């Protein structure tokens, strides 16, 4: 992506944050969100975040689907998920996940050339 494009993206992301966070602060006392819309909004962020990370865990370097445990990112992701469900601590989870991933990557036990 060209330099100029990235600056556009930064500006556009600023608009995305401002419009979701500040809009109701500025006009909110005159607006109520319909219940139906609120129900839909509840699911949107979880689905979006899942759709962002799932390919990173499940796709190989060439965009091929890798669902075996020999995929270091998938394995590290599963361990991290289990750890987070257990301890509910983001920082520790990231450290544990990165450790598992790095050990698998450096030792290259599965020889998949990551």
């Amino acid at each position, binding site marked *: *992506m060209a330099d100029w*494009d*990235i*600056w556009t*993206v*930064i500006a*556009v*992301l*600023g*608009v*995305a*944050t*401002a419009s*979701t*966070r*500040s*809009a*109701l*602060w500025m006009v*909110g*006392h005159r607006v*109520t*969100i319909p219940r139906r819309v609120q*129900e*839909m*909004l*509840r*699911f*949107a*962020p*979880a*689905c*979006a*975040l*899942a*759709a*962002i*990370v*799932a*390919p*990173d*865990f*499940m*796709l190989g370097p060439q*965009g091929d*689907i890798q669902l075996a445990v020999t995929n270091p990112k998938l394995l*590290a*992701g599963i361990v*991290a*998920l289990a750890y*987070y*469900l257990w301890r509910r601590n*983001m*920082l520790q*989870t*990231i450290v544990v*996940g*990165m450790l598992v*991933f*790095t050990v698998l990557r450096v030792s290259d036990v599965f020889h998949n050339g990551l």
Partner: protein
Amino acid sequence: MNGARLDPGMERGNDVDGHDPAAWREGFQVGLPTLFGLGAWGMVVGVAMVKSGLTVLQASAMTLVVYSGSAQLASLPLIAAGAPVGVIFATAFVVNLRFVIFSALLAPHFSQLPLFQRFYLGHISGDLTTALFLQRYPRTAPERGKLSFLKGLLYPSWVAWQVGTFVGIFLGSAVPTEWQLGFAGTLAILCILVPLIINGAALCGVLVASIVSVLAHGLPYKLGLLVAVLVGMVTAIVVEETRGRRKVGHG
């Protein structure tokens, strides 16, 4: 006469919104335990930004302008893949939709403030600070110290986040690429995602969105991502309504 009539109102306004050091300190103390986590998460985002190819200047500008970890992390793979600006905007917007609900809860507390102040207070209020504020002040009526308490929560959080991010930006540019520190960003998103799975319907939506995003990964302009979000959301709503009907039917 006019002045006399206006004065009490203004005085009351000053009284409610004036600086209250005790309330500010209380807000700071309530938020204190979260500051370290915020800084660490900011560090992860900072590293992920430079690792996905942003220059130090761009990463710094991004964190100052956007100030939304999940939206920043979400946009990075899209920037790296050269996705169109419209798709990146749509993705960040959807990721941030939870703030529409949060701000609907928080904003009524401060509707009396000047427009610009409402804008920046909204812009710097995040998930944690909103939750902590609403625990302390569940009722929306104006109250002395409320605004100072909110500032005691928001300003230190903002500073902790920015300091962490800048450390990450400079750390990230020193670390070799093959360490793949960007993966830490993916793990961070995983940790944000789990608490958002509020019920079985949401879990179904998340699973379907994950599967669709992998299968539709090859679609041009990263449109697979948006397709996955839509299909996942519709799945969650359909599952919830089917269950609700069944419950009503049995009841």
